[in-house]
């Protein structure tokens, strides 16, 4: 069974059809990239999957279980976590707190035990710390030690992106949706994050769906690429196939000069 299966998904905002009849699958352990020009509906797709928006029609299934109509936190319980394109960290809280909060939904201990700090709560808390450290370790030492206790607002932009990825991993989800993980990073940091995403799949066992504008990143790690334009899937396949696809080039570049004449005649 595929991990994530999206079928005939539709969503419109007023008159704007942001997602049109979109279908695709993600297999377990795959890294699938969603690309497309600005406004193609990539973030909208993420919002639909994670329950921020409700689709007008169509189905979204995670391992055969429908996600449509779930609240975002229920989607996390089901096993999908995300990062945000515009970063939505808990800015005034420490890096450690940011990576602990996503583990709260798995806590089984009632609140009054937390107040009394009973042994079972202490154990759960220690476990949460271990998980947090494990996830932050993906990014090397830079988020560990003293950074752990710094508020997020003092971090660099790249470190905030990393913290967000660690935070998504800490939810315990099997599948991660990364919205432009390398936005705002310099080429060297991008190269590093590319390797980290690969390690997240290989070592962390996550299935990854990502949106990215940096094509070298996409080409480097994607098993498959889905191309959107105006909310529709215009191509799907390996990176090499997709970037040479006529429709994709057209979506990104507009029509070629030499085609223009013939197109105009048709119109």
């Amino acid at each position, binding site marked *: 069974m595929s991990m994530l299966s999206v079928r005939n998904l539709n969503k419109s905002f007023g008159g704007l059809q942001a997602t049109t009849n979109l279908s695709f699958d993600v297999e377990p352990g795959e890294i699938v990239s969603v690309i497309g020009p*600005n*406004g193609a509906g990539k973030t909208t797709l993420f919002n639909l999957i994670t329950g*921020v928006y409700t689709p007008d029609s169509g189905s979204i299934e995670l391992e055969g279980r429908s996600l449509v109509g779930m*609240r*975002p*936190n229920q989607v*996390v*319980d089901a096993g999908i*976590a*995300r990062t*945000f394109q515009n970063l939505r*960290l*808990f*800015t*005034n*809280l420490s890096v450690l*707190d940011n990576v*602990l*909060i*996503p583990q*709260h*939904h*798995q*806590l089984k201990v009632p*609140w009054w035990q*937390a*107040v009394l*700090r009973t042994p079972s*709560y202490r154990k*759960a*808390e220690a476990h*949460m710390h271990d998980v947090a450290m494990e996830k932050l370790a993906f990014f090397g*030492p*830079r988020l560990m*030690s*003293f*950074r*752990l*206790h710094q*508020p997020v607002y003092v971090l660099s932009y790249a470190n905030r992106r990393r913290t967000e990825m660690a*935070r*998504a991993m800490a939810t315990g989800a099997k599948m991660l949706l990364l919205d432009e993980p390398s936005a705002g990073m310099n*080429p060297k940091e*991008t*190269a590093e994050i*590319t390797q980290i995403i690969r390690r997240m799949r290989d070592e962390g066992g996550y299935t990854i769906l990502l949106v990215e*504008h*940096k*094509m*070298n*990143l996409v*080409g*480097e790690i994607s098993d498959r690429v889905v191309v959107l334009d105006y909310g529709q899937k215009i191509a799907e396949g390996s990176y*090499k196939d997709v*970037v*040479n696809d006529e429709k*994709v080039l057209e979506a*990104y*570049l*507009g029509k070629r000069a030499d085609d223009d004449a013939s197109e105009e005649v048709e119109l």
Partner: protein
Amino acid sequence: MSDSRTRLRNVMLTLGVGAIVAVLLALVEGNGGAKLNDTLALFAIWGIAALSLNLVNGTTGILSLGHHGFMLIGGYVTSLLIVPADVRERIASQARSDMTPFTLSLSVENAFNAVGLQALTTPETLWVRFLVALLVGGFVAMIFGLIVGIPSLRLKGDYLAIVTFGFGEIIRLSASTSLFSPFTNGALGFAGVPNDFGKSIWWTFAILGLTLFVMTKIKFSSFGRALQGIREDEIAAEAMGVNLARSKVLAFAISAFFAGIAGGLWVSYLSAARLDFFLFFLTFFFLVAISVGGTGSYTGVLMGVAVVVFVQQYGDPLEKTYGLPVWFGVIGSLILIAAAGGWLYRKTRRMRPVLHPLVVVLGLIGLGTLLFAIFGQNSPALDGTFQAFGMRRILLAVLLIVIMAFRPEGIMSRAEFSWAWALRERKDQPSDEERAQDAWLSNPDLNRGSATSSEDPLPASLTAEDAPNAVPFLERGTKPDPDEPRYGEGRDWQPEQDDEEEGR
């Protein structure tokens, strides 16, 4: 130092400070006089209420303005359950009272008698009955907290604040309606509530300590982190699995419980329960305390409560009658101080011109008023007196404005007092070694020849060879301005030739 040793040290330090506070309280109780005693008790009671309000307002970030309503519920329930038998007889004999024999029989004493605990109905065991009444009051307030928590799931920000404000008023106004007056004795309320607890600094401070304990433990637990996550970014919190509904309702319920307890102590402090003891001004005081001290910081909230209680208790001179020269003198001095403050502010911020016309004009007005007050003392224009009613609250409101203007996050901001902080152990500062490592990680010049860059995962050739048509365009790296119109001409943009160079 190991974790467990640090914890032991912190517990010892806290107990030590607790002991010192206890000794001080004992001294005050023995020699401090009734006024100081009352002030401390008031500090503790309002402290409990403000701390509980801060769980919702500060930690969870939901502006709630109905706290006086929860206090009212706690206060009335406590009164109903604790007022002594002679008070009940007097109420029963009053023609204007709506109370029924059934509601008059609702008391902890009768409950104890009914279950055969006669030992707990003696005057010596009044404290047991009082604690039971207090707890029941807390629980009833908590149930109402749950009821208010439910609209909080749908509403946000200002709307919710208005709803909670309305709710607080509804509670107060409906308490005197025929539906509830059998329980509240309508507008008459209850007199003769035993004041052995609300006026006792031991009881009030013990419960304040308990409240502080619960609140800080919640804040630094997984639940508190989730609540703070909601405050920071509700959408992100939900996307990280936090159940917004459950968390907010829990916060409201716990907060209302402690507000109910504070209400019970408040009626005991005043020896009576009346509707006008639970006006919005109570919530206003707590809001001032929270804002001045630091929204979200329990340490700050207690500081804020201290300020508010001090002004309230020792502000009498503000509301006395003074001759006009005194008033003019004071006002003139205040304006002068404001002008001097403005000058200092501009100077430290290096703002030009330092002597802004407004500063000059203010200074001149202040000086003029002051000189007029001094030299015109005996002139007929200044012959008269003036009494400023409500000056205390005006002062608090002005304090609120000043804090909002110059330090909106409050004195403590979100920080809490901690022993690690007091002893200057800062975990968020790098050691020299860490600083060096950090510089190495973040500076490409320092680690150019290192392992990470030698196995550069992005050979330039990958896309360039594989998709010759696509590369210069797809690899643009940066995104166009989102405000730029994309539909229409925006689509025909031609890539610049040196795009590829910029990328690396």
